[in-house]
């Protein structure tokens, strides 16, 4: 490889090195926790009672379809696979838009494509690095599974599934970057495609009659491989070849546009739209309204799907009371009623709500680092007013998103033929907002202490604490660890009582941390 190409490769890798390490460690850690929880749950024998649950359409829709739970690897596939693959796909898509569209937008691409290089070679190198990133995560998955005593073949198929998912997410990002400008729009489109692909898999697994939909999404192809189960290795062909083919389309598209151009972009000119520019409070909303739209539509759609799946679980409970008793012993008893399923689903949705809040408030730090707030802070409102206005808009955004989710979830429940009042659904969804005060305070603190990595650290915190809450009890982790986790205090309301004391305590911690963060924020140097 020529020295100049090596240089481009080194530059691109340097940009993605940190996120690759973080995602690799996260994925490996979650797999390891999954393997240990399988052992702690009694292994294959202990999983026998879960088989009816695994085959339930509603559960299959959420977690994916597996044929058995007789080894740790398939338990990881079932319990964590959906979460792992969605995370990998979204990370790869965002990395792809950052490495391509973002560089074209800020002009740094111009430097790379001059001299010895051309656009094709730089895009090829970037694509290669994205492929290596996916391979890195896949390799880590394979090693962790092998070290955990899983079969080499099953581990390899799982790892290749992770690689295929990463590659698929990456080409979605690459394609979005060619078609859409600027970077923010390209990232939104890429994430939307990944989420829609995930939803298609969810719908595909909800019923035998919709299984064919798995062929319409890379999540479906990876599932069809069936790692640690009766395996269909041929499903790997479209899963791995698909991204390669799309990459060819990406390269073809690049050759047909200017650097910095796109097939679709917001017009360079527009008429004046002075609305919501009159104060920091209104501008905080206007600046982030497109993000809010995507989040609200996504959450509402997910809520509707969850609501629609309620009936499948209710039907199961009616046919097998003994199964209900077994699930109750496992701690899944709440899921066999419609209300219980809605309640547990809302706990899952709390992750999305907290992500919305973290990303919304993190944008203040992002704007500061980019220098956009220099004039505002030097000649305009107080910093505290700016930050508080963003926090207020975040609370409004998450409230509206929750309201939309309540409506769509209830509609889904009703469409499924289940009887449930909208008040019950509202109780469940609103209880999922219980961690918002804590996350607001924590994010403010991060903005004050680490503005350059606020979003990354905040996101990782949400993911890690959710995983600890989900799997810690199964692994018999110390009570101190579990009680230190904010998700520990979220209950499956209304099936379980709202933990007012616990959430009040967590919220108080959030308020204290937030106040300390605010104090620090107005006293530190403005970063740029």
């Amino acid at each position: 490889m020529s020295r100049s190409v090596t240089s481009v490769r080194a530059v691109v890798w340097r940009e993605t090195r940190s996120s690759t390490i973080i995602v690799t460690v996260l994925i490996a850690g979650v797999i390891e926790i999954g393997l240990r929880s399988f052992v702690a749950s009694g292994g294959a024998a202990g999983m026998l009672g879960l088989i009816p649950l695994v085959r339930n359409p509603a559960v299959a829709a959420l977690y994916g379809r597996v044929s058995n739970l007789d080894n740790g690897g398939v338990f990881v596939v079932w319990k964590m696979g959906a979460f792992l693959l969605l995370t990998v796909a979204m990370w790869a898509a965002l990395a792809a838009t950052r490495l391509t569209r973002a560089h074209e937008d800020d002009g740094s691409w111009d430097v790379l494509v001059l001299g010895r290089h051309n656009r094709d070679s730089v895009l090829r190198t970037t694509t290669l690095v994205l492929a290596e990133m996916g391979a890195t995560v896949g390799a880590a998955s394979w090693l962790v599974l092998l070290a955990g005593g899983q079969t080499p073949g099953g581990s390899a198929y799982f790892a290749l599934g992770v690689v295929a998912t990463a590659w698929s997410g990456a080409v979605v990002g690459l394609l979005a970057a060619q078609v859409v400008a600027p970077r923010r729009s390209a990232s939104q489109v890429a994430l939307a495609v990944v989420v829609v692909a995930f939803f298609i898999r969810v719908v595909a697994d909800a019923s035998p009659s919709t299984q064919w939909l798995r062929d319409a999404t890379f999540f479906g192809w990876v599932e069809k491989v069936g790692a640690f189960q009766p395996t269909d290795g041929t499903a790997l062909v479209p899963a791995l070849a698909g991204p390669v083919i799309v990459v060819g389309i990406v390269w073809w598209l690049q050759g047909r546009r200017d650097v910095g151009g796109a097939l679709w972009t917001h017009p360079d000119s527009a008429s004046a739209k002075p609305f919501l520019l009159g104060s920091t409070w209104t501008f905080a909303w206007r600046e982030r309204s497109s993000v809010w739209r995507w989040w609200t539509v996504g959450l509402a759609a997910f809520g509707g799907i969850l609501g629609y799946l309620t009936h499948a679980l209710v039907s199961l409970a009616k046919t097998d009371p003994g199964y209900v008793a077994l699930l109750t012993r496992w701690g899944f008893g709440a899921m066999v009623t419609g209300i219980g399923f809605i309640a547990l689903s809302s706990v899952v949705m709390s992750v999305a709500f907290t992500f919305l809040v973290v990303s919304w408030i993190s944008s203040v730090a992002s704007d500061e680092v980019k220098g956009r707030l220099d004039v505002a802070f030097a000649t305009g409102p107080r910093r505290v007013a700016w930050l508080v206005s963003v926090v207020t808009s975040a609370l409004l955004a998450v409230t509206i998103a929750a309201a939309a989710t309540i409506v769509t979830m209830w509609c889904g429940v009703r469409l499924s033929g289940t009887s449930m009042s909208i008040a019950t659904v509202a109780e469940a969804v609103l209880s999922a907002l219980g961690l918002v005060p804590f996350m607001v305070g924590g994010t403010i603190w991060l903005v004050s202490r680490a503005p350059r990595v606020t979003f990354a650290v905040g996101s990782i915190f949400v993911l890690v604490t959710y995983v600890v809450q989900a799997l810690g009890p199964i692994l018999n982790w110390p009570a101190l660890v579990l009680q230190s986790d904010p998700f520990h205090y979220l209950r499956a309301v209304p099936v379980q009582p709202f933990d007012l004391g616990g959430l009040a305590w967590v919220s108080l911690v959030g308020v204290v941390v937030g106040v300390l963060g605010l104090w620090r924020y107005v006293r530190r140097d403005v970063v740029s």
Partner: protein
Amino acid sequence: MATRALDINDMVKDFGTTRAVDHVSLSLEPGEVVGFLGPNGAGKSTTLRLALGLLRPTSGSVHVLGFPAGSDEARARVAYVAGDVSLWPQLTGEDTLTLLASLHGSTDGAYTTELIERFELDTRKRLRAYSKGNRQKVALIGAFATRAEVLLLDEPTSGLDPLMERVFRECVVEARDRGQAIFLSSHMLSEVEHLCSRVAMVRDGKLVNVADVTELQTRIGVEFDVIGDAGDLSTITGVTHVEELPDGVRVRITGSPVPFFAALAGSKVTAVHGREASLEEIFLSYYDEPAAP
């Protein structure tokens, strides 16, 4: 005594173990234009950001019209143009100016319209579609339109074409004549030379000199090209430098030129061309010397 527009008093700013601003003291009076010169990394932008309250001094103080930098009162009286203009890319120029006006709280709308016309800015374009120079125009219009009592400008003409540079100079002169104080950090020495009454020079975070522009020029001296045979001028009082030319010599004189002209009387000199030292030469004379330990 009238309150100073800007009063920087023994200011120090450390970033970890790096001292970016080293005991800088300088002031700016209302109606004055002061230039701030220094090589890259000398501490100019840091000093400006300290004066705006964006950075906290390690020691020392900064006051704007008697108010601590960064206070509500100071922010209401200051306008700022950053060295690298970064704003919200999806907003149009007009929306950006509307936003900047509402953030500052007081802006002359009619003057904004006038400035848009003078700077020939197409305000319908989104900021991401602007060239660097046009983004700079947005920031300049936003700053001048506030009619703020103190203008802190960090390389304000960066990216502007010569015609727009002239418009900028006109705006500075108008602002000065209205009694506004302007603190201008620039690499455009000719611009500083024409606009500023005083120049502050900084190097490695230290202030090396603050002086009137004319005083600096006098200090460096006047240069004469002597065409013809003038004999040996190196020993003449006031002559500090002699350089051979193909058709004569070039001499630099400080102080009174009388001994020099007296020496030329009776010589076979056919022409004498004189010019004052430029600010560039003054600037380079300070930075060609190694820094003090």
